[in-house]
C-alpha cells in the first residue's frame, strides 16, 4: 500500500515538472503586425508540404446589436463565398479546387473564421484568393437574396435537434440586453427576412472586414519570413477602418429563471446555466472555473460517479464555462434516465457546488486536474489544423495568440482558495437559469 502511494506521489511530481517553465505550445509563435493593423501569426510545424491557413475576424453574433439583423455575422460568412470582380464565384471555386485544399468557414458568438488547409506550396494562391475577397467582395443583389435560402436550410437541419431548440430558448431567457441573447444562427424571423437586408450587408462588410478586426494564422511547413512577405504583398494595401460596436451590458440578474420545452422524443434533460465571467488571461476567475468544472463534473468527479455510475440516475453529466469576450454562462447539463429524478439531481448538483464553497477541493485532485488539462492539450495538437484552431480561439478572446500559453501558465497558479472564491462568486441562485426538456407541460424544477 505504501509503495502504491509513493509511486502515485512520484508520478505527480513528475507530472508537474514536465511542463515546468515551458509554454504549453512547444513551438514559437511568430507575430508580425502590418502598418494597417493586420496581425500575422506563424507557427512552423513539422508537417511536410502541409500548411493550415486561417483568418480570424473578430466579429460574430455578439456584434449584432441592431434590431432585426440577428444571425447576420453568420449570413455574411456565407456571402464571402459569392465572389469578387477579379474572381467571380465560379472562378473562385475553380481556383480553390485546383489547390486541393480543405477550405471552409464558421461563425460563433465572438468571431468568424475562414480556413484553408492544403499544400504549403500553394500558399501564394491561397493568400491571393483570400486577400481579394476580404478587400473586394462584390456580390449581386440577387446572389445575396439567394444565399439567404441556404442559411434557412442550415437552420432547418439544426432545428431537428431539441437540444438546439432549448439552447435558443435558454439564451433568450438568460439574457435581457446583451447580444448573447440570440444564437449565432439568429432568430428565425430575422433569417426569413435576410433577403431584404442587402444594404445592411454592405455596411456590415465595410465595418468589420477590416485589417484591425483580422488576424492571419499560418501553421505548418512554412517560415515566418515567407508568410510575412505574402501578407505584406497581398494585404499591405488593405485600408484600416474605424468602426466600434457598442455592445449593451447585461444587467445583473436578480432571481432564478426557468424555461421548459415539452418534448417526449428524447430523454429528459436539464441545463443549469449560471452567469459567469468573460474570458481573461489576467484574472484568475476563468482558469479557476475550468479547474472547478473538471473537479466537480468530469467523469472522475464524485458527483459523476454517484449519479452516473452508482445510482444510474443520469446518462450524462457535464459542465463548464463558455470562453467568451463578454460575461457568458457556466452551463451544467444532465441527461436523465427518468424525469422523476430531475429535482433530486438538481439538489445534488447544488449540494456539490455548496461543498466547494465551504470545504474547497482536495489539493491532490487539484494537482491531478492541472496535469490533465495540460496533457489533454499536449496530446491534441498533433497536426497544423488543430494548432491553428487553438490559436484562433485565443485570438478571438483577446486578440493575442499568446493568451493560450498564458492561460495554461495560469492553471498552475490556481489554488484551493481560488476555486472556493469562484464557486461563491458565480454559483448563486440569482444568477441561475434552469432549462428543462420532458414530455410534461412544465419542467417543475426549482
Amino acid at each position, binding site marked *: 500500500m505504501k509503495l502504491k502511494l509513493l509511486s502515485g506521489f512520484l*508520478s*505527480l511530481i*513528475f*507530472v508537474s515538472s514536465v511542463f515546468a517553465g515551458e509554454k504549453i505550445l512547444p513551438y514559437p509563435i511568430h507575430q508580425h503586425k502590418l502598418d494597417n493593423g493586420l496581425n500575422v501569426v506563424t507557427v512552423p510545424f513539422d*508537417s511536410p508540404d*502541409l500548411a493550415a491557413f486561417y483568418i480570424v475576424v473578430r466579429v460574430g453574433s455578439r456584434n449584432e446589436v441592431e434590431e432585426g439583423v440577428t444571425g447576420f455575422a453568420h449570413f455574411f460568412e456565407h456571402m464571402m463565398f459569392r465572389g469578387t470582380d477579379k474572381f467571380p464565384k465560379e472562378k473562385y*471555386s*475553380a481556383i*480553390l*479546387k*485546383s*489547390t*486541393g*485544399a*480543405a477550405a*471552409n468557414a464558421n461563425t460563433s458568438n465572438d468571431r468568424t473564421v475562414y480556413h484553408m488547409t*492544403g*499544400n504549403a506550396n*500553394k500558399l501564394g494562391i491561397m493568400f491571393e484568393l483570400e486577400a481579394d475577397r476580404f478587400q473586394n467582395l462584390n456580390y*449581386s*443583389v*440577387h446572389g445575396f*437574396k*439567394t444565399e439567404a*435560402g*441556404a442559411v*434557412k*436550410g*442550415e*437552420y*432547418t*437541419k439544426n432545428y*431537428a435537434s*431539441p437540444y438546439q431548440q432549448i439552447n435558443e430558448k435558454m439564451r433568450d431567457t438568460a439574457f435581457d440586453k446583451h447580444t448573447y441573447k440570440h444564437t449565432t444562427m439568429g432568430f428565425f424571423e430575422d433569417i426569413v427576412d435576410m*433577403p*431584404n437586408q442587402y444594404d445592411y450587408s454592405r455596411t456590415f462588410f465595410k465595418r468589420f472586414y477590416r485589417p484591425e478586426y483580422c488576424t492571419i494564422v499560418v501553421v505548418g511547413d512554412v517560415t515566418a519570413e515567407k508568410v510575412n512577405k505574402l501578407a505584406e504583398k497581398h494585404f499591405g494595401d488593405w485600408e484600416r477602418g474605424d468602426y466600434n460596436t457598442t455592445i449593451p451590458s447585461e444587467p445583473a440578474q436578480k432571481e432564478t429563471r426557468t424555461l421548459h420545452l415539452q*418534448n417526449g*422524443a*428524447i*430523454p429528459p434533460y436539464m441545463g443549469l446555466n449560471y452567469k459567469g465571467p468573460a474570458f481573461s488571461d489576467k484574472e484568475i476567475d476563468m482558469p479557476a472555473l475550468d479547474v472547478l468544472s473538471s473537479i466537480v463534473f468530469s*467523469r*472522475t468527479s464524485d458527483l459523476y*460517479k454517484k449519479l*452516473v*455510475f452508482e445510482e*444510474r440516475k443520469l*446518462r450524462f453529466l457535464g459542465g463548464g464555462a463558455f470562453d467568451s469576450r463578454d460575461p457568458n454562462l457556466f452551463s451544467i447539463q444532465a441527461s436523465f*434516465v427518468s424525469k422523476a429524478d430531475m429535482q433530486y439531481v438538481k439538489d445534488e448538483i447544488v449540494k456539490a457546488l455548496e461543498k466547494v464553497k465551504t470545504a474547497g477541493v482536495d489539493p491532490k485532485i487539484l*494537482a*491531478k*486536474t492541472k*496535469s*490533465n488539462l495540460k*496533457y489533454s492539450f*499536449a*496530446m491534441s495538437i*498533433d*497536426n*497544423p*489544423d488543430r494548432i491553428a484552431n487553438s490559436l484562433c480561439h485565443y485570438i478571438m478572446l483577446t486578440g493575442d495568440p499568446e493568451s493560450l500559453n498564458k492561460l495554461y501558465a495560469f492553471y498552475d497558479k490556481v489554488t484551493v482558495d481560488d476555486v472556493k472564491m469562484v464557486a461563491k462568486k458565480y454559483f448563486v441562485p440569482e444568477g441561475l437559469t434552469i432549462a428543462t426538456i420532458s414530455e410534461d407541460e412544465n419542467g417543475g424544477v426549482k
Partner: protein
Amino acid sequence: MKTILLFSLLFFAAGTLTAQDVVELKMPNSNKIVVKLMFRNGSICDPQGKEGLTYTTASMVAQGGAGDMSYSEIQDKLFPWAANYYSTVDKEVSIFTFQVPADFADEFYPILRDVMLKPAFDESDFKRITTNQLNFVEQGIRASSDEEYSKKALEDLLFRGTNYQHMKEGKAASVKAIALDEVKSHYNNFFTKNNLRLGIAGNYTDDFLKRLKKDMAQLSSVKPDLPKPGKANMPNGIEVEIVAKESAFGSAIFTGAPLAMTRADDDFAALMVANSWMGEHRKSYSRLYQKIRQTRSMNYGDYSYIEWYEQGGGNQLPPSGVPRSSNYWSIWIRPVQIAAQLQKQYAELSDIPIGHALFALRMAIREFDLLLKNGMTKEDFEATRTFLRSYIKLYAQSPGAQLGWLMDSKFYGRKNYLKELDGLLAKVTLDEVNKALRTSWQTENMYVTIVTDASEAEPLAKSLKENSDSPMSYSNLVKSGLPKEVLDEDEAVAKYKLNVKSVKIVKSADTFQ
C-alpha cells in the same frame, strides 16, 4: 526447474501475433502513443434477435471495469495523464483505440492489457451501457438529426433481410433481449487473436510493442465463425419510403443503389473522380452543390458518395475505421423546405401542395442522368483529378489518422491505400472514368428515404406516385432575379419523370423494427 521449463513451453505455445497482423508507424518526435486493435467482426456478427450484441460487447470492454479495477477506478488512474481509450463498431470491424502521452506509456500499459484481456463484465456496467444503447435505438436516432435518420433508414432499405440491415446499436427488441452471459461468450468467440489486427503509432519503444504483441496473443484462441457480409438489394424501379415525423421542420433525403466495387478495386479511383466532380463531400465546387444550393439555395448542401461516410454532418474529411466489403453509392440532399413552412413564410406560396423535396430529388437524379449520358469533359476530369491528388493527402494528418488509414488498407488487401490511390489517380484516363461511372451508376432502380413532417408525407407521396410535375416554388424575392437559363432548367426538372414504382409512408415509431 521443471516448473519453469513447463511454463516456458506454455508461453511459446501461446505464441505472439504474426508480423503481418501488426501495422507499425514509429514517430520518434511525437509526444504520444496511439494503439489500435481492429477486430474483424462488426455488427454482421450479431445473432438474429440479438442485434446490437457486438456493440454492447465492445462497449463493455471499453466502458467497463477490467482486472481488479472498476471502470471508475480506471478513469481515476488515467485522469492525470489525460490518457484515454474508446471503442467503435461498424458493420465488419470493431476497433479499440488507446491514446497515452509517451511519458506514461509504461504505467498505462497494464491498463490497456487488462482492458483487452480481463474485462470485468460487471452487471452494473452492463445496465448502464445497455440503457444508453437502448435509448439511442428507441429515441436518439429518431430525435437528434433527421439527416442521420434518413441515412440509416436508407441502409435499412438497401440491406433489408441481410446481416447488414440493422444499425450497429441494434433494435429496440434485440437490445432488450441481450443478456450479460451472451456478451461474455460473444467476447470469447468474436474478439480473438485470430481476427485481430494490431496497429501502433507514435513514440513507442520496441519493448512496448513486444509486450503488446505477446499479450494480445493471449486473447481467446477461438477461430471466429465470421458470417458472409450481406449484399445490398437491387430495388425494382425507384422505391420510396417516407418517414412521417411530428414537428419536422424540413424534408431530409437520402437515395442510393448497390455498387459492386470497393477500394479493393483499381477502378474505384476512376469512379472517385466522377463522384468528386458530382458531389464531393462538403465542397462548394461540386455539381450537385452548385445546382441545388448555390444557384437555388434550397438547402445547406448536396453531396454524393461511393462508400460509407461516417458522421457526414460532423466530419469534413473522411474518417478511417469503417471499412466495408458490401457497398452502395448514394446521394445526400440536406433538409429542404416543406410546404407548411413555405406557406407560412411567403404569402405568394400560400397554396403550394408540396415543398421542395421532389424537385430536389428530380434535380439530383437528372444531374446523374446527364453525366451518364454526356460523360465528364476533359477539362473537368483534369481539374478534379488534380484536386483529388492533393486532397486525399489531407485524410491522414495526425498519427491516429495515419495509422487508421493504414489499417483500413489491409482490410481491402492493400498495403497503403492512400499512396496507391495517388498512383491510380495519376494514371487514370478520362475514358476509364466515363466507363467506370457508366458501369457503376444507374438511376432507374434506387431506394429513396425521406424523413419529413407528417403534414408533408401524404401530399409528397401522392406527387411521387403520380409522377406529377413539381414546379420549384421560389419566394418572389428570389424568383425575380433568376436568369432565364435557371428558370428553363427548373421547368425541365419539374417535369422530369422518375421511374417510381412504390411509395410507402411509415410512421417514425415503426422504423428499424
